[in-house]
């Protein structure tokens, strides 16, 4: 009976982790309790390790817990905590329900898996995170949610909004989707494709050939205190365990198990009709264990609704005639702007594995995956895209969700003084100068009044003037600037984030006499 409870526990815990992580990424109302998201993200191996490298606190010690668990129980991370692993289990489960899938005994892909692990580690120590960005299982799962699942959730929400509004209910709100990042989308589709194909055909092959975390924990699990082992005296050579083993690591003929590939799913224990498969002290003696039946568990699977566009069509074609003439000077930004709390481009690009949780969580969607802005090795790492949106002055969401320590948690008041970059003005593009008409969109949106409209006597119009010392680089001015195709104001990145001064407060000295007559 004791094995039954182990598998049951695995299924429950793994689904809890999987669905909580999915919820954190897909929740449109940002209503997931912070404690829940922090708990599940705490255990994600690569993010936690990277976070520990920037801030060595208890909150970043999840990877140590995982190492500890592995040395005790084997690679429980892969079956309990890793969302990409659980995703494969779900695919395998569906495959089992729809057809017969039987696993067999295979050799390990030792050269491939250690080759990949060593390559990733070498790349990391040579100063690039690209190997982890490409292969960290959590980050890959995050990108799949962000770029494949979230758009479906958003469109489903919007269809629901559309239907409710047609009966005059405004309880649900529509959510906009600021563009689709092509590269992360394609990358996610490719990884998902590889994972689906591998898991359908070969179970947990991905985890035992490609995944660097799997390989590393597999190496550690050689030293685990508890291991799954054959008890030759009890084995009737029925092969039930081998057929159930997603990792192909059970060798019934030789009564050995390659525990470095075992993801500790407990399926073999569950399936063995005698008690020949045992989970026990790796160095201890046999203890007789009871016989039990294999139980079947149902997964509840959520199926995504289909994607539907719900934009209203214009009553007639054609666009308004503009008197405006296009701006002429292209904006050349020297470096991308990294999110508040990332400290510097260096810290950010060294710690971020592009899981895109901040991209999903950002309320204004200013955080967008980069393409080559950070260079080839920083591909997909998020940047502040001020064409898409701007950074909300009071918001610190990205810094609270980042599991990697790439964006470090910020106090909202301190965040208001972080200078991500400085606004730069291009007079030749500005409509006030080119058309001699009033505008002020940049100054209007600026939360600190680093950009203000000051009377220019030459053109007799108020024109934008920038005070860089109080500019926080939030991009509100750049986003709001109406000139096209080139903006007239943009944020030049601070490669190392600076500290802005507090805007000066000057109390207005006007006496209001409430009994005085109206001036008209």
């Amino acid at each position, binding site marked *: 009976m004791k094995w039954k409870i182990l598998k049951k526990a695995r299924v429950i815990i793994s689904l809890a982790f999987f669905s909580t992580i999915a919820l954190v990424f897909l929740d449109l109302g940002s209503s997931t309790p912070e404690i829940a998201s922090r708990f599940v993200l705490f255990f994600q191996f690569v993010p936690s390790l990277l976070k520990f490298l920037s801030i060595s606190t208890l909150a970043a010690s999840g990877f140590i817990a995982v190492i500890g668990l592995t040395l005790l129980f084997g690679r429980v991370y892969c079956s309990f905590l890793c969302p990409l692993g659980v995703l494969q289990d779900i695919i395998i489960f569906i495959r089992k329900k729809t057809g017969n899938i039987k696993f067999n005994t295979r050799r390990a892909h030792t050269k491939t898996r250690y080759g990949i692990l060593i390559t990733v580690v070498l790349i990391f120590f040579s100063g690039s995170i690209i190997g982890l960005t490409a292969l960290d299982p959590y980050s890959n799962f995050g990108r799949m949610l962000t770029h494949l699942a979230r758009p479906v959730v958003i469109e489903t929400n919007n269809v629901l909004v559309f239907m409710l509004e047609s009966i005059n209910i*405004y309880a649900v709100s529509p959510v906009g989707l600021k563009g689709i990042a092509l590269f992360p989308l394609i990358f996610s589709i490719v990884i998902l494709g590889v994972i689906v194909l591998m898991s359908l055909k070969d179970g947990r092959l991905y985890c035992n050939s490609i995944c660097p975390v799997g390989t590393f924990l597999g190496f550690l699990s050689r030293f685990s205190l508890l291991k799954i082992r054959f008890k030759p005296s009890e084995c009737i050579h029925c092969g039930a365990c081998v057929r159930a083993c997603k990792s192909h690591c059970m060798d019934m003929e030789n009564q050995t198990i390659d525990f470095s590939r075992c993801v500790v799913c407990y399926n073999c224990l569950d399936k063995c009709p005698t008690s020949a498969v045992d989970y026990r002290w790796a160095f201890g003696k046999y203890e007789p264990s009871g016989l039990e039946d294999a139980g079947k568990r149902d997964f509840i699977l959520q199926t995504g609704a289909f994607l539907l566009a719900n934009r209203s069509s214009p009553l007639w074609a054609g666009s308004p005639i503009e008197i405006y003439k296009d701006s002429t000077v292209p904006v050349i930004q020297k470096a991308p702007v990294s999110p508040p709390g990332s400290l510097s481009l260096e810290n950010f690009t060294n710690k971020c594995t592009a899981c895109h949780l901040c991209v999903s969580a950002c309320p204004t969607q200013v955080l967008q995956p980069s393409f080559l802005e950070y260079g080839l090795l920083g591909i997909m790492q998020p940047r502040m895209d001020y064409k898409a949106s701007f950074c909300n002055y009071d918001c610190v969401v990205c810094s609270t969700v980042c599991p990697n320590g790439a964006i470090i948690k910020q106090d909202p008041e301190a965040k208001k003084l972080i200078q991500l970059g400085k606004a730069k003005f291009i007079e030749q593009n500005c409509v006030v100068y080119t058309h001699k008409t009033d505008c002020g969109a940049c100054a209007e949106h600026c939360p600190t009044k680093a950009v203000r409209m000051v009377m220019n006597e030459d053109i007799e119009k108020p024109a934008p003037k920038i005070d860089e010392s109080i500019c926080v680089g939030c991009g509100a001015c750049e986003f709001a600037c109406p000139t096209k195709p080139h903006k007239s104001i943009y944020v030049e990145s601070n490669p190392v984030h600076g500290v802005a001064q507090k805007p000066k407060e000057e109390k207005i000295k006007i006496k209001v006499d409430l009994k005085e007559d109206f001036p*008209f």
Partner: protein
Amino acid sequence: MSLKKTRDLDMKRRQFCKTTINFGLGAGAYFAFGAGINAFAAATPEQGSPFDLVAIKGSEPDLMFCRAIKSLGGMKHFVKPNRTVVVKPNIGWDVPPERGGNTNPALVQEIIRQCLDAGAKDVYVFDHTCDKWSNCYANSGIERAVKDAGGKMVPGNAEKYYQNVNVPGGKTLTQAKVHELLLESDVFINVPILKNHGGAKLTMSMKNLMGVVWDRGFWHRNNLHQCIADFATFRKPDLNVVDAYHVMKKNGPRGVSTADLVTMKSQILSMDMVAADTAASKLFGMDPADVPYIGLAQQLGVGTMNLSKLNIDRIIL
């Protein structure tokens, strides 16, 4: 403040609104002005209103509205039973009420209550915000106020809500995408807040209508003042209520801190946007001639800047 206390205070205010102002304070105003000035007369809905504009000061936003609307024949004059109403406050910014960046929530709440008391079927409230819309709705206090009063808060953040329309009276702005509520509702009540503004000089009734269209960039590129005046010809609000309680004198329209504000405890009501904005600029302390869109709108026949020709009810509480 406890919930019960709040409710009690609320009850008292409503009671106050219904009775006291009508007689007690009305008389007070009468004596304050002396007999020579327009005798206080609460017009009835049937009569219509003898006044073109009401200026009031010296009390709280909701109470001033209670008093001022009576001079215009009461809400029943504007809202007939079973009509739908759209109320358009300024909810542009993610700032709390005390920062004066958005219309006073107590004023919005009182307007909705009176609409529903007058028999309105539904009262909708929305704005096309500048900051993240859900933050603006929540942190301005307006969402809560609207829901408590029984109104419906409608999003303005998706293009699908906006329909293409022609603006036949416009010179530069001849087309726009306008929120469907503005096209579908029977009654349109415009509730701006009076503020300093970097581009438009001042924001009040006409500038507030930028929040009912989708593409504001077009306005900014194509002579902002002309576009504001052009759009004012499209659908004139049935009533404009300019909130001048906390008035942002500088750093507008978002403001940096409460140091930007002056508490003027005033309000201006008018059916004529040009008149309302002319009076509001004077109240602010700026010559209406220095706010180009007001003059441009007068040229387009939206209303009049000549306040001396209007019948104005001036109330000092």
